[in-house]
Structures are given as C-alpha cells and as structure tokens.
C-alpha cells in the first residue's frame, strides 16, 4: 500500500477519537470554512477550578490530514490545563501522527487553531481575555500562505 499517510494518520482517519458535537460545551471553536476545504469545530468541557480540560470533542470537514489531526489534538489536549493545551503546536500533533505530508501541514495547523479558538472562547466567556480575530477565508489564507506551496509542499 502506498498511501502518503502514516499508519497513525490512517488509523485516526478511519476511527477518529472524540468525535461529535457536544451539548452545552464550556468553550467552542470553529476554524476554517467550507470555502477553503477545511473546517474544524472543537468543543471543551473545562473544570472551572483546575482549568483542566475534562472532555473534548471535534467535528471535521476536510481531508484525511484534517480529520486525523483533529482526532490526535483532542487526545493530546484531554487532561491538560488550558495553559498547557494552548502550547500544543501543530508540529507536536504531526509528530504524534508519525508525520504528515508537508503539503498538508495547513490541515494540522487548522486543527490546532480550532483547539486554541475553543480555549479562547472559554477564556472570553470567563473574562480571561478580550482580544479576538474572526476567522474568515482571508485570515485562513493568510495563515496558510507560509505552509502552502502547491508544487513543493512546505
């Protein structure tokens, strides 16, 4: 079999963990848009005393990288404090997946953005931050620019 994806990616793609919409999430992030082909929603349940992520789930519209990264991100974030979860990078996610095709790096970036945006949503609701930037197509394109070269990949 000659898939460009690692075993781990394919496993998470086939059987993604922590999927589905959450009722009454404490924090919720939606990144990307159908327009650019990637969209990730992340839902959080947070313990208000410890600020630990007690439950997390995602929904994904996108390619295999997108789905697998969202899946691994929820695994990585579960049980971490918001501060620690914020520090999860797309590189770590990619490593945990045994690598991602360079040209698809933006898909994992987007999943990480989804998590961060859900955390930001929680923090805003709880008066912890104010700054926000809505993610429209323009913002995604800008973010993706540095990771997307259609011919060579990264």
């Amino acid at each position, binding site marked *: 079999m000659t898939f460009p994806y690692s075993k781990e990616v394919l496993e998470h793609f086939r059987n993604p963990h922590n999927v589905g*919409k959450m009722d009454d999430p404490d924090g919720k992030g939606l990144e990307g848009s159908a327009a650019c082909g990637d969209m990730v929603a992340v839902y959080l349940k947070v313990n208000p005393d410890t600020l630990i992520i007690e439950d997390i789930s995602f929904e994904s519209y996108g*390619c295999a990288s997108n789905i697998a990264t969202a899946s691994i991100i929820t695994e990585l974030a579960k049980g971490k404090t918001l501060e620690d979860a914020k520090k999860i990078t797309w590189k770590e996610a990619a490593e945990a997946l045994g690598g991602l095709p360079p040209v698809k790096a933006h898909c994992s970036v987007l999943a990480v953005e989804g998590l961060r945006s859900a955390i930001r949503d929680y923090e805003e609701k709880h008066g912890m931050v104010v700054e926000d930037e809505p993610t429209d197509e323009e913002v995604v394109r800008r973010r993706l620019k540095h990771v997307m070269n259609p011919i060579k990949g990264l």
Partner: protein
Amino acid sequence: MFDKTVYLDNAASTRLDERVLEAMKPYFFDTYAVATSEFGYSMGIESKEGLERSRKVIASALGGDANEIVFTSGSTESSNMAIKGVLSALKGKKDDHLIVSRLEDFDVLNTAKMLEKQGYKVDFIDVDSEGVLDLEMLKAAITPQTALVSIQYANQEIGTVQDIKAIADICKEKEVLLHTDATHSFTRLPLDVSQIPVDLVTVSAHTIHGPRGVGALYIREGTPINKWMDGGFQEFDLRAGIENIPGAVGFATAVELVTPEENEQLKAMRDRIIERVQSEISHVTLNGSATSRLPQNANLTFHYVEGESITLHLDMMGFAVSTGSACFSRSLEASHVILGIGGDHERAHGSLRFSFGRFNTMEDADAIIDALKEVVENLRAISPLSADD
C-alpha cells in the same frame, strides 16, 4: 492489495485493451523502420502504410479526409498546436482575439491564459448551472478581430455536452474559425465534420483504451495554421518528429474497437449510479446536465463532506474515483468547472466524478454505490456541516 481495483476514473485515463497491444506489436518487432518516402526501403514503406491506414481510420471516425489528420503526442499537444498554430498564422490579419469557454480543460484554458499574458485579448464565455454554453454571450463576443473560438464538445468533469452544431453555425455565420476539444466525446458521441463546420478537433487515444502518448488534430483543409514543432517534414510539414507509428496503429485500433453497444452499456452504468445515489443518499446534487451528458460520466456532490476523505475511504475499499476537491488536486485548487457552473467551494469539495470504461460492469456500479452509502454516512457523522445550518 485487493483482488481487483474497481477503476472508475476512465476520464483520467484508461486501461489499454489487449487487442490494441496486439495490433501494435508488428510495428514494434517486424515493421519498425521509420516511415520512409516511397523511395525508401521496403520496411519503411510498409511502416508508412501502417501510418496512413491509421490516419484514415481516425479521419473517417470524424467524417474528414486522411490528409486533414495530424498525429500528435496527445490532446494537450493537439490543442496547443490548434490554438497557437492558428493564431500565429493569422498574426497581422485577424490577430488578437481568442474566445474560449470557462469550462475548458487546462490544455485550452491555460493556453488561452498564457496568450492573454502575451497580449492577446481573450474572452471566457460563461455557462449556465448545468454547464451549457451561453450562445448569446458567444455571439456577442465575436468581433471582426476574433481569430479563433475554442469550445469543448464535452466536459471532462461534469460531462455536459455542448450543442456543437449551434456553436459551429454561429462561428460559420460570423466567419471565425472554431476549434473543439473532443477528448471525451470522441467515439462516444457522433461528431461528423462533414456535417458540422468545425475547423479543428482535438482527440486522443488514451481515453478510449488506446496507448498513452498519442493524439491527433483534425485540421479542415485550407485552415490557416503554422507549423508548431520545428524539425523534419513529417505530418504534412506541420508537426516534426519521428512518427509514432505503433502509437498511431494503436490509436486506430482503439477507435475501431468502440461499438454502439458499448456506449449503451456505459450509459446504463452512468444512469444506474445517478439514479441509485440520488434515491438512496440524501443531500446529493447532480453536477452537469441531466440530459445532454457524456454516456460515460456521472458527477455528484455529496454535501457536508469533503471529496478527498471520501476517495481515501473508497480507495481503502478498492475503488478508484476522482473528486473536484482542492485537497485531491496537485494544485490544491478546487475544480474550476464546478465553480464555473456557479457552484460554491463546498459543492466542488464534495464532488465525485465516476467515469466508466470498457472494463467496468454493472456490478462495479452497484458495489461503489453500496460503499458510498457507508462512507458518506460515516463522514457526515463527524462533519460540522449539515442540512440544519
């Protein structure tokens, strides 16, 4: 990996037919000389006969004369030659205006864009939501400076077939030359240049179980066209380079092997997929025309899910199909065809193209429908998008 891949991407390329290879073999192993002039040696003269017989087959499949057929390396070359060759021949006369449709494949579209950068004026004609060309817009676009109109006969992705007769009549009346890219319609739908006044037609072998690397360009006698590849005097001094005679013979054989029954069978598989998918899976849109459609093409959007995810799942189950999703393509851009018929990115990303060929069966069509039902349901279960939004 699987016992057998169910290959439903025949629009991209097809499996060679064994009989085509058998027909090519004598030209690999026995009559392998270059086509010499009639004053060359016997083997070269026999090579030349093989070449000219093949030329006749291609010509008569189009209703043209053998001396109106130039062999090329494929559709891309044929279209480059047609467009660049005509524009350069008309340079200084009707020199600066080219008209193409928005749905052309890259061979025509990117040639047009490149010429636009070089200073040509190019108009891109719109299509309606089924992919049918806007004839009024075409009429209005033609000016005395128009050198060439290039409109495909049938679309590579959504399968919509144009009213080539109406288009040709418009061009004829306005006295402009017409090129049509008939890559997907050739032998599948009739196109008779003795009835329909198109001037140049692009065709290719590998979409009809012929060899890779061979195509042809029909050039109506008297059409102004410059030589496009410089070198020897081959192909009526219009296309230099040693003739690919085994390729030409293979192409001709591939043409001869297509039968009306086969085309009916393709249509039956196409209709099965369109009907069963629409009745058994919710939130599906047919892309392209329901009525004016290539017999071998079905294209459907499965809303709320993304094409690369579907194709990867299908691949792991042994099916090969393609999608208009950006994620699947080399350029990571969504299909210009689906966007061109007014679809949004979501419609492009969720589109799948099923294209049938000689080696497919009705069981293949049924098997992929069953697989799709499962895959689409699973992907929808994790999608943030749904009909409720």
